[in-house]
């Protein structure tokens, strides 16, 4: 990649945004850090859902299955196998991906809208199933033993900083990962799938294995994020872990409002979501109604979201993934 003028701008913007975030624990107070951690994991979940629905044609409303599984995995690993929680994070991701494998085999028997509802049923099975495990506190959930939490870092401030950096790191890994994936041959195949599945198949894109691998990968990453989320919350219940509202509805709204099928869209949607929440959260149910109405309106009027609206008038991209013919 040559460093032309636009790339220089992109690079400067990256430094300008990511730079201060890297030093968050040195300038942000506890409340701000908590908020940023939440922003990071919601952005990561939004990018992952966008990879599924926006790029791979896999419209899932059951991603809460993997967020919840990740959470329960890190708690189980810590409590029953004595695995330190920092090791537990990647292991929870791997375990979630392994469980997602047979799950995907079942879900992939359904297509289109029925795939969406099928993923939801599977998430419900996990929710109801974990509520039946007495060792994990059943329906009322369980807290992470304080000794395991304290072993993470010297004191609370250090622990919070560490959680912050892990959240930021995971978000950047997801963002960079999806970007590199979309620039690769796999991404080209996925784009072809998204644009016209029949044509993609006819030119030799192996759609099923491709979708399968993406689904498992997204599940594993969602599991790792879920592990981090519940490591931060220190307590897990089946309702919170497998919440369709938190891990599917909000994530889908973020992507739809920001702009599905682009990397910039979820970022824009995430920023807007948290700004709106700061002002409107007191409205309670009306806040959800507003988010819902905006999402539906966007889907009907401009399916490519706010980013689509912006780029319609001024074509630009922060994460170039499209290909130009040489010369």
């Amino acid at each position, binding site marked *: 990649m040559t460093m032309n003028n636009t790339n220089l701008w992109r690079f400067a913007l990256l430094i300008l945004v990511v730079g201060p975030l890297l030093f968050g624990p040195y300038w942000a107070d506890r409340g701000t850090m908590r908020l940023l951690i939440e922003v990071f994991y919601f952005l990561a979940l939004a990018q992952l859902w966008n990879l599924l*629905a926006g790029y791979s*044609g896999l*419209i899932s*409303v059951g991603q809460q299955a993997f967020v919840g599984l990740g959470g329960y995995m890190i708690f189980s690993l810590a409590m029953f196998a004595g695995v330190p929680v920092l090791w537990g994070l990647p292991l929870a991701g791997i375990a979630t991906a392994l469980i997602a494998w047979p799950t995907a085999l*079942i879900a992939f*028997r*359904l297509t*289109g*809208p*029925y795939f*969406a*509802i*099928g993923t*939801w*049923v*599977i998430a*419900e*099975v996990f929710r*109801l*199933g974990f*509520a*039946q495990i007495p060792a994990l506190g059943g*329906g009322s959930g369980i807290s992470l033993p304080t000794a395991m939490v304290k072993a993470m870092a010297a004191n609370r401030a250090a622990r919070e900083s560490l959680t912050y950096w892990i959240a930021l790191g995971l978000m950047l890994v997801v963002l960079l990962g999806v970007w590199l994936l979309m620039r690769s041959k796999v991404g080209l195949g996925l784009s072809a799938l998204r644009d016209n599945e029949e044509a993609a198949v006819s030119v030799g894109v192996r759609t099923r294995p491709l979708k399968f691998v993406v689904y498992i990968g997204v599940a594993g990453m969602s599991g790792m994020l879920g592990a981090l989320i519940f490591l931060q919350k220190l307590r897990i219940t089946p309702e919170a872990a497998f919440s*369709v509202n938190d891990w599917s*509805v909000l994530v*889908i*709204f973020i992507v*739809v409002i920001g702009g*599905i099928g682009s990397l910039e869209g979820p970022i824009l949607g995430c920023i807007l979501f948290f700004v709106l929440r700061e002002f409107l959260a007191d409205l309670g*149910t*009306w806040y*959800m*109604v507003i*988010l*819902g*109405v905006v*999402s*539906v309106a966007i*889907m*009907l009027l401009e*399916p490519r979201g706010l980013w689509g609206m912006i780029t319609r008038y001024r074509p630009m991209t922060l994460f170039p993934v499209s290909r130009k013919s040489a010369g």
Partner: protein
Amino acid sequence: MDWINAIIQGVLLGGLYALFAAGLSLMFGIMRFVNLAHGDFIVAGAFGAMVLVEMTGLNPLWMLCVVVPVMALAGYTGQRLVLNRVVGQDLLPSILVTFGFSVILQNLMQEAFSADSRRLSAGALDTASLSLGSGLSIGAVPLLMFVVAIVVLGGLNWFFAHTNMGRLLRATSDDPEMIGLMGADRRHIFGVAMLLASAVVGIAAVLLAVKTNFDPTAGPIRLLFAFEAVIIGGLGSLWGTLIGGVILGVSQGIGAQIDPGFQILAGHVVFLIILILRPQGLFPR
């Protein structure tokens, strides 16, 4: 005896599930479209019946006369004004728009009716039952649900087989593009499909309100039951939804008999097993 009773109750509950499923099956069969707010529409209908009962003081079953035509009309209008815009090749808009509807409806109902759980009383019918001897008895309400399901499914099948509109709907299901070339107005046909599906939703809504407790967030689980009954029965088969509903109801009944916590889970598990062993469903068209 408890077990036989659980199975009988499950079979009858299957009638209600078949009504949930018939609406979903009609929409997918004719328009290749699934309404993710299906369950929330059912619950909205139940709340509508509740409001009418509070206003008139009549038996909730009379509300069928109002809820069903209102839902049917709303379905047709909604299809013409909004949903026809998202039905098509690309699945994403239709799924996301109806998913948005689901969230909007749930929160509006919560705002209007609070999160309290409700149930409508059908008067003497609530406690009436038919004794089968040796401790077995069938409640009047569950029996009514099952009979209504058979009548509705039979009526729909008759409609599809013997009327002009029914034939048009079947033709649309086979090839929506060709039907346009033949001069039929696809937008109107889709509207009629939604009208039928919504009328069935209205019937299911009133029966749900009489049979069980409902609250503003009770919709999604009904969508899942409807979907499971459709897949178990086999896509495109209306009588299949009855078989699917009965299998689901019986699984839940047996699950609940083992442990109350297993009721819903048992239904989901049986659905997944059937999906693994026979993905085309038991009676595919």
